[in-house]
């Protein structure tokens, strides 16, 4: 028996989330007293994963897999599960993983728990804690099938070094054909995405208009953060919908979320609840966001944010 982690990569390099799922997978393997196998696709720096506990890396190298196809990946995972006698499959919560996970679960007849936030509290029965009710609660979920699939919520476990002497094995699964064809990929270039960002700087209607977003972008730039916005801002067309954070927008699970001129409607808070530290800057001392935030400044964004940018630049220069 073994635990299998699917480590995602982009242009041959592992995403940060791959190190988190590998760290998590190693601990699950220890709980089950078994070994950790990591499945990689078109990557060359597989030895990096040994540092996080990957005892065996199964590397698939095939040009046909340059573009992600969920069905193909699900079939590859199935073959890896059979080859390695896997009892738990672990994925991250990136868009591609969430796409493939239900297909994987069906392929191997496995119960699937998404949004997992902690190690299994028990392995017999197998129980994991997961986020539910749009981050307003957790449910402890028992998976009763022989094989289990888990997707780990971003930034919920952390990255831990656990060096092992691993091996990498070339894996050549049978590839299935699909009539679902990728025609084009539009990638926002040169910007930190909300999904990958450790810090997110978000603006609301308090900024009064799109022409005032320069300071949000500058603050984000100083902090190497992604920019985001509240729903009314995207509805008004001040910012693209892809930046809308909230219940029906993007969820944010960053280490730091800075909300500027956002009052904190319940739908917005549902989207950012998973962020570890929340800062709010708002003129209205009664804004609901102050109840959800860790740190707050009651003040005018147009006065506070430029000062914050200036001071952060000095701080960064001194702490470089």
């Amino acid at each position, binding site marked *: 028996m073994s635990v299998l982690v699917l480590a995602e990569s982009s242009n041959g390099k592992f995403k940060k989330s791959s190190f988190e799922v590998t760290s998590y997978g190693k601990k699950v393997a220890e709980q089950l007293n078994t070994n950790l196998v990591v499945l990689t696709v078109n990557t060359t720096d597989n030895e990096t994963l040994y540092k996080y506990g990957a005892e065996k890396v199964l590397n698939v190298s095939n040009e046909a897999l340059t573009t992600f196809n969920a069905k193909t990946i699900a079939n590859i995972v199935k073959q890896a599960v059979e080859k390695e006698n896997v009892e738990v499959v672990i994925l991250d919560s*990136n*868009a*591609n993983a*969430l*796409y493939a*996970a*239900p*297909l994987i*679960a*069906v*392929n191997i007849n496995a*119960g*699937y728990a*998404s*949004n997992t936030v902690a190690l299994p509290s028990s392995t017999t029965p197998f*129980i994991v804690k997961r*986020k*539910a*009710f749009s*981050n*307003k*609660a957790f*449910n*402890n979920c*028992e998976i*009763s*099938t022989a094989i289990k699939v888990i997707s780990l919520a971003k930034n919920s476990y952390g990255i831990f070094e656990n060096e092992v002497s691993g091996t990498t094995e070339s894996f050549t699964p049978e590839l299935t054909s699909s*009539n*679902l*064809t*990728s*025609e*084009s*990929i*539009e*990638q*926002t270039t040169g*910007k930190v995405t909300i*999904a*990958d960002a450790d*810090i997110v700087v978000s603006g609301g209607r308090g900024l009064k208009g799109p022409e005032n977003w320069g300071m949000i972008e500058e603050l984000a730039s100083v902090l190497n953060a992604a920019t985001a916005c509240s729903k009314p801002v995207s509805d008004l067309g001040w910012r693209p919908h892809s930046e809308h954070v909230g*219940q*029906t927008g993007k969820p944010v699970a960053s280490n*730091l979320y800075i909300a500027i001129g956002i009052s904190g409607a319940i739908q917005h808070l*549902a989207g950012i609840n998973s962020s*570890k*530290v929340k*800062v709010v800057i708002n003129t209205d001392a009664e804004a609901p966001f102050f*109840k*959800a*935030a*860790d*740190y*707050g*400044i*009651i003040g005018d964004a147009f006065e*506070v944010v430029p000062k*914050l940018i200036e*001071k952060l630049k000095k*701080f960064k220069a001194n702490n470089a």
Partner: protein
Amino acid sequence: MKILVCISNVPDTTSKINFVENDTKFDSNGVQYVINPYDEFALTRAMWFKEKQGASVTVISVGDASIEPTLRKALAIGADNAIRINTPATDGFTVAKELAEVIKNDTYNLILAGKESIDYNGGMVPGMIAGLLDYNFVNACVSLEIEGEKATIAREIDGGKEVLTCNLPLVIAGQKGLVEEKDLRIPNMRGIMMARKKPLTIIEPTTNDTATATTSFEKPTAKSACKLVDADNVDELINLLHNEAKVI
């Protein structure tokens, strides 16, 4: 074109989330139930196809009789008929199996659903339906066009979007972008009256296998009060973020 829209009956976004029976059951006392917001995008897109390109729209949900008002609301919005599978929706895999069984017996060209429900947030049912039926599937769908048998779909990826094409049948897990929020429909009086006469078929479940079960619920630990920093002292905020929270 025959379209099936899968609907979840969920607590309204603003509901207080509480649990009873030693934190093993959701407390539905005083909770208003609604069509899952992500499913509303799917239903609205289905109505667009019905009105612009010609399609029949069936809505389906898994649950006991208490979910019928939600299905009637979907009928009032314009769906032609509704199906309720008479079993509690406790496990995503079981729900997907029940829905796949219906689809297998009465072929649909397009199956639309939201990318997740706002109660259990499982995000698994549409993909599992596709997996069980070996249909094409696109997750996190932000646009969908259909011409004849060919579908062109955009899905959200991390930091961008991908455009895909395929032939029907197809399962879509939709989100905002599939339609704009301003285009979501509210049932009017005529729709509500007509919905009363539209067929709502009840069918019995085919399986009682479950893959997952909730053993208990927990609420997040109460957070400490917000530390307020004077607007003239942003240095203090930087100090707290660096030394206390350790996030910069």
